[in-house]
C-alpha cells in the first residue's frame, strides 16, 4: 500500500498532503515492523522447539554415557583349600556348602595383600575395612568361578571384581568428599586409597558389558544391574505384537478399504478405530488387567500379556497407515485384474496387497517402535516392581514367565532413590532410543527404496 499513498486525491478545501515514495510514512513503518516481529516470533518458536530437543538429547547423553563404563578392581586371590574344600577331595557337594560368606575373607586378605605389596599407606586397618571399596557381588563371582573350576582350588588367580557403586561414583564425579560426609558405607580414607590404587592401575574404569547383557540387581547393588533381561522381555513382547497386529491390522484394513459395504456397521467400526487411536494408553492397561489377568487368569508380568495389551494399543495405528497405503494403489490395477477374470479376492491378494506392502511394513515398524517405548499399560499388568534377575530358560518361559521390559526397567530404576540407579536409567534410555532410531531408520529406508509414486 506504500504506492497508494502517493496518489491520494487532495482533500477538498485543504492543501494536498506532500508525500514521497522514497520516504516511508509512519503507518507503513509500523506495518513493516509488525511483519518483522511476526516472522521473528515464528523463528523463536522453532528455535525453542529445537533448543528443547537439544537439551533433552544432551541431558540423556551427558547423564547416560557414564552407565556404559564401570569401575573394576584387579587383584590376585588365593583360593585357599582349607576354606573352600576342607575334605580335599573336590567333591562338588562339599564345595557348594561354602556360602558366599565363606568367600569374603579370601577377598579381604587378597585386598590387604595387594595394598601391602604395592606399599600404599592407608588409614584403614585391614582387608575387612577396605572391603567397602568392593561390590558385594565379588564373593558371588568368586564362588561361581570356584564351582565351575574346582581344580583351581589352591591356586592363586587374578580376578577382576566390580568396585562398589560409591567408588564408581567417585571416579565418575558423582560422589565427592562432601557428599559422603554422612555416608556410612564409605569414608574419605577409602577415597584416598582409591586415588592411590587408581594411580597404580589396580582400579580402572572400562567399558561395561554387564550393563548391556546383565540382569537387574537388588537395590543395594546398582553396580551390578544391567538391562539385558528386560531387553529379552521387550523382545518377546514385540514378537507377540508383530505376530498379532500385522495380520489382524492388514486383514481389518483390507476389509474396510476393499470390501466393506456402506452401512451402519462399517461406520461403527470406523468410529471405533479412530476413537481407540486417541484413548490414553493407561486405559489399555486397565483393560489388560481386567480382561487378561483378572478374567482370563493369564500370568501377571508375563511378556505375553504385555504383548496382547500393546497389540490392542498399536492396532489403530497400523490400520490407519495400512489403509493409507492400500488407498494409494491406483484403481486401474484392480480394474485390470478384474478385467482378465480374477475374482475380487484374487485381485486384492495377488495385486493390490503386494504393491501396498512397503507402505504397510513401514507403518508396522513405526507402530512397533511406538509399542516398544510404551510404559504406562505395562505398569498395570505388573511389569514394574518385578526384579528381572534371571534370563528366561526357554521360549515358553520367555512368553509366560514374569519378566520386565526396557521402559518398565527404566521406570523401576528411576524410582529407586540411589543416584547410581539414575545413571543406569539414563543409560537404559540411550539403549532404548538406539533401538527406536534403528527401527525408524529401517522404516525410512524401506520407504525410500520401495515407495512407488503412481
Amino acid at each position, binding site marked *: 500500500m506504500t504506492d497508494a499513498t502517493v496518489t491520494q486525491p487532495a482533500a477538498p478545501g485543504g492543501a494536498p498532503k506532500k508525500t514521497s515514495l522514497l520516504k516511508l510514512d509512519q503507518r507503513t513503518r509500523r506495518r513493516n515492523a509488525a511483519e518483522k516481529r511476526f516472522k521473528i516470533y515464528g523463528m523463536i518458536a522453532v528455535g525453542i522447539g529445537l533448543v528443547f530437543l537439544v*537439551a533433552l538429547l544432551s541431558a540423556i547423553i551427558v547423564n547416560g554415557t557414564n552407565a556404559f563404563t564401570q569401575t573394576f578392581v584387579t587383584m590376585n586371590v588365593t583360593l585357599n583349600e582349607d576354606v573352600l574344600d576342607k575334605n580335599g577331595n573336590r567333591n562338588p557337594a562339599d564345595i557348594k556348602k561354602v556360602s558366599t560368606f565363606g568367600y569374603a575373607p579370601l577377598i579381604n586378605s587378597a585386598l590387604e595383600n595387594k595394598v601391602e605389596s604395592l606399599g600404599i599407606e592407608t588409614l584403614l586397618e585391614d582387608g575387612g575395612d577396605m572391603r567397602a571399596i568392593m561390590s558385594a557381588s565379588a564373593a558371588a563371582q568368586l564362588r561361581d568361578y570356584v564351582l565351575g573350576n574346582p581344580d583351581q582350588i589352591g591356586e592363586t588367580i587374578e580376578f577382576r571384581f566390580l568396585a562398589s557403586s560409591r567408588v564408581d561414583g567417585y571416579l565418575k564425579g558423582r560422589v565427592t568428599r562432601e557428599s559422603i560426609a554422612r555416608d556410612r558405607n564409605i569414608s574419605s580414607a577409602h577415597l584416598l586409597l582409591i586415588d592411590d590404587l587408581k594411580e597404580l592401575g589396580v582400579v580402572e574404569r572400562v567399558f561395561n558389558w554387564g550393563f548391556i547383557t546383565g540382569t537387574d540387581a537388588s537395590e543395594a547393588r546398582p553396580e551390578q544391574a544391567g538391562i539385558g533381561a528386560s531387553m529379552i522381555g521387550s523382545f518377546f513382547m514385540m514378537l507377540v505384537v508383530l505376530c498379532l497386529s500385522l495380520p489382524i491390522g492388514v486383514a481389518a484394513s483390507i*476389509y474396510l478399504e476393499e470390501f466393506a459395504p456402506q452401512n451402519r456397521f462399517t461406520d461403527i467400526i470406523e468410529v471405533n478405530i479412530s476413537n481407540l487411536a*486417541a484413548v*490414553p494408553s493407561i486405559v489399555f492397561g486397565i483393560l489388560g488387567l481386567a480382561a487378561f489377568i483378572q478374567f482370563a487368569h493369564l500370568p501377571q508380568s508375563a511378556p505375553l500379556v504385555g504383548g496382547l495389551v500393546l497389540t490392542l494399543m498399536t492396532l489403530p495405528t497400523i490400520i490407519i497407515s495400512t489403509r493409507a497405503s492400500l488407498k494409494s494403489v491406483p484403481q486401474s490395477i484392480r480394474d485390470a485384474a478384474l478385467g482378465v477374470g480374477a475374482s475380487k*479376492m484374487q485381485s486384492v491378494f495377488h495385486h493390490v496387497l503386494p504393491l501396498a506392502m512397503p507402505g504397510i511394513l513401514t507403518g508396522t515398524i513405526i507402530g512397533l517402535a511406538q509399542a516398544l517405548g510404551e*510404559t504406562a499399560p505395562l505398569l498395570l499388568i505388573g511389569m514394574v516392581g518385578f526384579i528381572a534377575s534371571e534370563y528366561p530358560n526357554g521360549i515358553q518361559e520367555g512368553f509366560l514367565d514374569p519378566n520386565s521390559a526396557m521402559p518398565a526397567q527404566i521406570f523401576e530404576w*528411576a524410582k529407586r532413590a540411589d543416584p547410581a540407579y539414575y545413571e543406569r536409567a539414563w543409560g537404559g534410555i540411550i539403549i532404548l532410543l538406539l533401538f527406536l532410531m534403528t527401527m525408524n531408520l529401517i522404516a525410512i529406508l524401506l520407504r525410500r527404496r520401495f515407495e512407488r509414486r503412481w
Partner: protein
Amino acid sequence: MSSFWLFLIIVSLAVIGFFVGTSRAMSVASGDKRKLHSLPSYYGSNIAIFTIVPSFLLLVIWMLAQPLIVSSSVRSHIPADTIDPGSTIGLVMSDVQRLANGLDVAVSQGFMTEEDARSVQAGSSDIRARLGQAGVVLGSSVRPEVLQAAQEYRTMTSTGDMLRAIFVIGIALAGFAYAFRKTSVTFRARNTVEKTIYTLLLGAASIAILTTVGIVLSLIFTTGEFFSIQACLSEVDNYEQTHLAALRAADMNLQNCPLGNVALLDQMTSVTGETFSVTTGDYLSAFADFFFGTTWSPSFGGGSELGILPLLWGTFYISVIALLVAVPIGLFAAIYLSEYASSPVRAFAKPMLEVLAGIPTIVYGLFALLTVGPLLVSAFGDDGALGLNWMQGGTAVMTAGLVMGIMLIPFVSSLSDDIINAVPQAMRDGSLGLGATHSETIRQVVLPAALPGIVGAILLAASRAIGETMIVVLGAGAAARLSMNPFDAMTTVTAKIVSQLTGDADFSSPEALVAFALGMTLFVITLGLNVFALYIVRKYREQYE
C-alpha cells in the same frame, strides 16, 4: 490331552486335508484342470477350512464353558452349613480349586499316583505334608468336604477333557469327510473359500469394536463394584449411628460390608430389629463422595476418603500449563515453517521437531524428574537464584506441565501445519494482491480459515495431556491437594490409577477398585474431548473446491 496338542492335531489334519483335497480334485477331473470349476488348490483349502473351523470353534467354546459348568456343579454339592460364618462360598471354591491344582501338580511330579489322588482321605493321611513335598503350599489344614469337592472337581475336569478331545477330533474328521465327499468337478470351491476369507477379514475389523466393548465392560463392571461397596459402607455408617447402643450392647463392631454374609446379617437384624439394606440414597451419597469429595486419602486399612476433585484439579492444572507451553510454540512454529521458512530450513526443522514426538514418554518423565525439576528448584526453590522460596521439591505441577508442553509441541505443530497447508493458495494470493503484508494475510485470512482445525488440534492435544501418565507419575509428585501454587506437588487421575493398582492391595478392596472408577472418568473425559474435537472440525470446516 492338553488343548495345545489338540490344536496341533487339528492343524496337522488340516494340512493333510489340503494336500488330499488338491490331489482328489485332480483325480475327479481325471488329470485335466480345465474341467474343474476352481483351481485345485481351492479344493484343498476347502477341506482344510472344513476341518479346522468348526472343530476350532468347538474347542474354544468348550474351553470357556467347561470351567463354568464344572465349578457350578461342584459348588452346588458343597453343603451350605459347612461354610464358616465370615467366609463365603467363593472363598471355599477358591480353596477347592487350589487343592485340585495342588493334586494335579503332585500327580504330574510323581509324588502321588492318580489312584492316591482320587482316593486319599483327609483324615487318613496328612495331605498337606504330601503336597508340601511336591512344592504345593496350602494355607490351612484341609477339611474333608473341601477335599471331596476337590476330588470331584478333578474327576469332572478330566472327564470333560477326555470328552473334549473326542468331540473336537470327531468334528474335525467329520468336516474333513464332508468336504472330501463334496469335492467334484462342479463344486464351486473358490466361492466357499473366498466367503470364509471374507468372514475372517470382517472378524479382524470387528476386533476394534471388541476392544472398545472390552474397555467399556471392564470399566463399567469394576466401577459398579466400587460404587456398590462404597454405598454399602455408607449404609454401614448410617446403620451404626442409628443403632449404636444396641450394637454396642451386643459387642458388634461393623467394619466391612456385611452383604453376602448371611449369618452376620441375621445376627444384625436380631440385635437391632432393623434389616440391613442398601438404598438408592446410599448410592447417591457414594456418587457424591466420589465426584464432589475434596479429600483424597486412601488408606488400605479402611476408612479412606476417595474424592476425585483434587485429582481432577491436578490434571486440569498440569494440562493447562502444558497447553500454555505447547500451543503458542507449536502454532508459531507451524506458521513459520509453512509460510515463511525456505525449503532447506523446513526440510531440516520439521523432522527435527517431529523427533520430539517419537521419544517415549518415559524419557520425558525422567527428564522432568532428574533435569527440569532440580533446575526449577534451583531457580524458584529454597535458597534459589531468585530467592522466592516457592518450591519445596523437584516434583511439581510446573515441572510436569513444562515437560508435557515440550512433548506436545510437535503434536500441535504438525496438526496445525497440515491444516494451514490445506487453506487454498488463492486466498493468500487474493489478500496479498489487495496489498496486505504477509503477516496480515496470515492473521486475517489464513488463521480464521484454519481456526476450526486448529481448535480441533488443541482439543486433541488437551486430551493427550489429560491421559498422559509417565510424565506425571515421575514429575508431578504424589500428594493430592487443591492448591493454586503451580510450584506445589500435585497429582493427577492417571498417576493415582497407577499408584492404586501397583501396590499390594487386594483387587476387591475399594482402594484398588477406585482406580477403575478413575479410569472410567478418564475414559469418558478423553472420549468426550475427541468427539467434541471431531464435531467442531466437521461442523465449521470450510469446504474449498
